[in-house]
């Protein structure tokens, strides 16, 4: 019995932790800086020395801030716009023109990349490392010349050129498609008298830590499919792993695939142009200057070995850089068009990929059909419930027969009045001999859990829910319901959330709580009194836990509960009618 209490206590504390996590998300303290600010060692592979380059880069950043603004070349596709910084050959200005930050009509477009001298530096950069130690290669301060005039637009590539003055000419030929993909061909033409050895690389670098949802069913941080395997490393794991291994959280040679840094909805990633090209890929983190402000996150891909370029020859490396929204159809399309292995896994489908992905596709199809994403959620839930209905119904088919057994059951209850365990045992024996059983069994329930979890996950990660309205007061299904019980749904002129993030109890969460309470009333009460008490509080706990969740998810929960209740009610009525028909005099049955 003591052990039982202990486990009950453990279960409760897990519940409290979950709630705490949800409440805490709003005001998370900044994570601790790593014990020692890791400095990059200059030694081993050329890629390591050049690509992440901590201290020289830092100095350069300070120097850049003091100088005149860098020359830029603009680019534009139907879905994004920005500019290439000609100083350092990096794309550090990129917005997604079809997505806005907020619902306000004058809201700015979603920004992915920002320059180093501004807020939230985040950029993609292409470069070379000198492997022979004497070839002069471009660095972060190099001013490139845009050979092509005008803007970089689809079907019109742009060439950047730099002459190192020692016989080598470096070129980067950028091209864009009509969506989110930038292709870069790095070339070095050796006009010198001796062979040179250089190592081309591309990197995505983020010099700030974004606020993350911090929820365990959503991955944010490093992600990529390397050698056919999805490799996800969260920001905090990369920080601790980087501190242990001199800034490298993960490093491996991989053929094809892709790697990048992901947010809930957005991704910046790099990949080779040729699906059979092998590149050395790394996830890195270093801390410059301590605290979260000093966090530097980097994904880089480099040739596995330096290119040996003979006099008169040209060495090349072709890579692509994706910066955009993780729309499932778009990623699928890229995966097929460019042979990018596992590119759809940029969306955090999780363990139930085989279920979540079809749900995604059906949900989007329904959303297109009905014109409202909320309605699509309701319809898909109905469809899944309907698919499981025969299972639930099968169990209740024997219910009518049960009624006939009622006198026998009463007799058992009377006989073992003082021993409910024995009574239940006898009851089960009776069910068996009469071949009836009121319960549907544990297996059907266990099968349903992953299905409903997959649906839940689909709704959690899908970008198509973003900024989509539902009926009434819900303008954005991906944001928490804005109404609040604590100011009487707007009757009182203040925002309780300003006092404390705890004070948020939206209308849809209350609806969800009520439906859950009703549904649990229909379940048999557990025999164990502690369990019964825990269950009685469960709707309350869930109401609070889900209060700050995206509205679309709460609506789904409420709807799912409602359907469960309706299903149970229907089956019970059906069974009662059947029992009545059986009892009616003159009925041959």
């Amino acid at each position, binding site marked *: 019995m003591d052990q039982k209490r202990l486990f009950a206590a453990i279960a409760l504390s897990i519940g409290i932790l979950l709630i705490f996590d949800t409440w805490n998300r709003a005001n998370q303290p900044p994570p601790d800086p790593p014990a020692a600010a890791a400095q990059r060692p200059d030694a081993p592979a050329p890629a390591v020395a050049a690509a992440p380059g901590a201290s020289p880069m830092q100095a350069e950043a300070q120097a850049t801030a003091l100088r005149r603004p860098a020359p830029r070349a603009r680019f534009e596709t139907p879905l994004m716009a920005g500019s290439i910084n000609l100083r350092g050959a990096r794309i550090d200005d990129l917005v997604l023109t079809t997505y806005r930050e907020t619902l306000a009509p004058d809201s700015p477009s979603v920004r992915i990349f920002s320059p180093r001298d501004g807020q939230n530096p985040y950029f993609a950069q292409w470069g070379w490392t000198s492997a022979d130690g004497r070839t002069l290669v471009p660095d972060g301060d190099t001013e490139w010349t845009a050979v092509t005039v005008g803007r970089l637009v689809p079907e019109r590539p742009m060439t950047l050129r730099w002459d190192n003055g020692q016989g080598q000419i470096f070129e980067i030929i950028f091209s864009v498609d009509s969506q989110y993909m930038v292709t870069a061909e790095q070339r070095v033409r050796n006009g010198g008298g001796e062979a040179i050895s250089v190592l081309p690389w591309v990197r995505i670098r983020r010099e700030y830590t974004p606020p993350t949802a911090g929820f365990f069913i959503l991955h944010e941080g490093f992600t990529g499919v390397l050698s056919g395997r999805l490799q996800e490393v969260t920001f905090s794991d990369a920080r601790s792993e980087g501190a242990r291994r001199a800034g490298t959280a993960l490093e491996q040679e991989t053929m094809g695939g892709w790697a990048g840094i992901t947010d809930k909805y957005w991704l910046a990633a790099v990949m080779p142009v040729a699906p059979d090209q092998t590149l050395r890929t790394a996830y890195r983190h270093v801390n410059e200057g301590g605290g979260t402000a000093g966090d530097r996150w980097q994904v880089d891909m480099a040739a596995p070995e330096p290119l040996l370029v003979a006099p008169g020859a040209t060495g090349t490396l072709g890579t692509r850089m994706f910066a955009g929204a993780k729309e499932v159809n778009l990623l699928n399309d890229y995966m097929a068009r460019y042979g990018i292995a596992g590119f759809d896994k940029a969306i955090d489908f999780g363990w139930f990929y085989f279920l979540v992905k079809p749900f995604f596709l059906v949900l989007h199809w329904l959303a297109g059909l009905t014109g409202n994403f909320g309605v699509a959620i309701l319809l898909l839930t109905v469809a899944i419930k309907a698919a499981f209905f025969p299972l639930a119904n099968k169990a209740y088919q024997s219910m009518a027969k049960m009624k006939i057994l009622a006198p026998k059951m009463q007799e058992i209850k009377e006989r073992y009045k003082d021993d409910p365990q024995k009574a239940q045992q006898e009851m089960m024996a009776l069910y068996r001999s009469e071949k009836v059983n009121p319960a549907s069994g*544990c297996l059907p329930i266990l099968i349903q859990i992953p299905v409903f979890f997959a649906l839940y996950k689909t709704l959690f990660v899908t970008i198509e829910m973003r900024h989509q309205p539902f009926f009434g007061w819900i303008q954005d299904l991906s944001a928490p319901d804005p109404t609040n019980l604590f100011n009487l749904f707007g009757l009182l002129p203040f925002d309780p959330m300003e006092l404390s993030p705890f004070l948020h109890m939206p209308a849809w969460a209350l609806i969800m709580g009520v439906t859950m309470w009703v549904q649990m009333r229909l379940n048999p009460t557990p025999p164990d009194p502690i369990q019964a008490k825990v269950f009685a509080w469960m709707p309350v706990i869930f109401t609070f836990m889900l209060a700050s969740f995206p509205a679309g998810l709460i609506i789904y929960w409420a709807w799912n509960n409602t359907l469960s209740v309706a299903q149970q009610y229907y089956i019970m009525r059906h069974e009662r009618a059947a029992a009545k028909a059986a009892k009616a005099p003159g009925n041959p049955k």
Partner: protein
Amino acid sequence: MNLAVAALKGCVHCYRYTLRGVIGANCRFYPSCSDYALEALSVHGAVRGTLMSAGRILRCNPWNPGGYDAVPGPQAPKG
């Protein structure tokens, strides 16, 4: 009781206080699947206990009559 058994039993208890509340108890047997699992883990250890519990859950479906089904004792005849 070794560590693996304790951990597995902990999982079963966790299920009983959380998930079971959400999805409801639907077992067709006596003792219920979770009681059966606890008993099987105690009597037969982590590996056999887990396998027996898995088998029990597979049996617990609408096409099985259900009813009384206790964990066989440690000396149960084999085969």
